[in-house]
């Protein structure tokens, strides 16, 4: 296995607080890697560093051994890196189908003036919408969807850019058990098709069941990593969660 994404000694400070402190992680190609840690341990900050929303104070991020530290967010999508947000973010006034079309890999001036939606893109979008059970809502504005449906739409939409690596920020947060099960199945089947996942999740049963490798962060540092059954009984991890 080769690393698809790795970070090297990432540091990010906010005033006096070091949110991410000398953090080096590796995400193997084809894996579902979990990223866990107590609240405020730097998980989302790490996501924001990887996706260039924040600039690191020092350290680097590599995708396929290629440095992507200073690559603007909008280009990362074209290089195969996509993410969802902890609080679902959609284009609320656009239709479900239009939400699917925006994140299509596209570069160059000529495509800008082309039609808003190509036939093959629509076919692919409807395909993905059917997979998440939203195809009958394709012409509804995104704001009319229920919370769970919005989460599914956000997930489905980033798949339109055919990502190699997807960063999921709490995919199971705030959704009912049926939907959690559905999302887990979806992640697993996409993983079978070759998509690599890095997942932040607070729901431990989901993380333990879904991930084949887990990274544990505490106070901005990686304190442990390994397969789920090792992490569960790791005394350092338990201490981080339970406190002294």
């Amino acid at each position, binding site marked *: 296995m080769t690393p698809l994404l790795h970070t090297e000694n990432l540091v990010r400070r906010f005033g006096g607080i070091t949110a991410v402190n000398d953090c080096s992680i590796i995400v193997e190609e084809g894996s579902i890697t979990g990223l866990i840690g107590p*609240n405020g341990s730097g998980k989302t900050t790490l996501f924001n560093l990887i*996706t260039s*929303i924040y600039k690191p104070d020092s350290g680097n991020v590599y995708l396929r051994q290629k440095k992507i530290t200073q690559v*603007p*967010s*909008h*280009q*990362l*999508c074209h290089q195969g890196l*996509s*993410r969802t947000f902890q609080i679902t*973010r*959609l*284009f*609320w*006034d*656009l239709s479900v189908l*239009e939400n699917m*079309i*925006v994140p*299509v890999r596209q570069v160059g001036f000529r*495509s*800008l*003036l*082309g*039609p*808003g*939606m190509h036939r093959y893109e629509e076919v692919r979008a409807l395909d993905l919408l059917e997979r998440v*059970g*939203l195809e*009958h*809502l394709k012409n*509804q504005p995104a704001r009319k969807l*229920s*919370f769970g*449906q919005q989460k599914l739409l956000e997930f489905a939409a*980033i798949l339109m*850019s055919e990502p190699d690596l997807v960063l999921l920020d*709490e995919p*199971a*947060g*705030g959704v009912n*058990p*049926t939907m959690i*099960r*559905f999302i887990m*199945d979806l992640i697993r089947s996409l993983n079978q098709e070759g998509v690599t996942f890095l997942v932040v999740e*607070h*729901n*431990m*049963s*989901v993380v*333990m*069941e879904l991930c084949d490798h887990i990274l544990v962060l505490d106070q901005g540092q990686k304190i442990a990593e390994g397969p*789920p*059954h090792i992490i*569960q009984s790791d005394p350092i991890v*338990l201490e981080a*969660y*339970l406190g002294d």
Partner: protein
Amino acid sequence: MGRIIRWWPLPVLILLLIYPWVYREPYFHVLGFNVLLFATMATSWNIMGGYTGYKSLGHSAFFGLGAYLVAIAANQLGWNPLWSSPILALVVTLVAFGLGWIMVRTSGSAFVIATIAMLLIFRLLALNLRGITNGAPGLSQPLPPWTPEFSRMPFYYYMLIWLIIAVATSAYIRHSRFGLGLLAMHDDEGKAEMVGVHTTLYKVLAFGVSAYFVGLGGGVWSYFSTHISPVFAFDIIVGVEMILMTMLGGLGTVWGPVLGAFIFIPASDLILFQFGSTTIHLAILGGLMIFILLFLPRGILPTISHWLEERRTPRTAHTGARSMAEMQDKRSAAVTSEIKPAGDYDPVIINNKQETL
């Protein structure tokens, strides 16, 4: 039926074509020209302010720049404004690209203030570069060659052509990949950036394009009024009126700015007549703006289409219940099982962390 409705612009266009021959007094030709001029400029402003949501209050800068470029070219080089306006408006667009490249780095109210500052800078330049602009007295232009009784009609038809081109451009952008990116940015710029939209480039392009028809309108207006001065060419009210009529008709819609202009300009003329040449019509304009914001915050067209949509689809049609039920059908095997903890790990961890669920 839907087919017939789609052809509605045609009878409207015919009405607009015969209008100057029905109402033959020069006043009506001036009014018609003003409506078409502002409809064109509001349509143009809407590409940036409506689609993208970056509301520029300084588009008068492009209006004045177009007016001055055309007047200077007419005086110094003898260029006829009717063909030089569309060409010199390209220069305005280039200037807007350059300024936009700086200004789109701000957002929200900072952007609005930056555009006002831009307008004031242009106004100061027009007042003080006396060698080029003749300062405060302004510039005069040669009169149009046609006979006085027809003097307004060519302007009317000329502006009608440009309104059609502007609306076609706006509609084309609205349905292109570019327009989809602009609308996406309007809803969530950070998210749009994350899914691969080059937001800075999109904003600069939209800003430049939205300056084009405003600059062109300024050029035609300078020929129409034969004399321009900094106070009138770089008047913030021109930009404010573009925004008002766009908001009245419907921000971010193709036809909203046009409808808004067709209501707003005659209405403000009526108000002006009622109160003579005082500035009270400005106060009434302000009152109208507050009225629109309070009672028609989305504008006429979006309000109507929302109303039609509500009537067409019963409220229960598109809620979560149906799709969840369908999903459960599809995945009946999966849903019957609750989430099972995998392996025996410390249950305290779950209890501790499930508060976020």
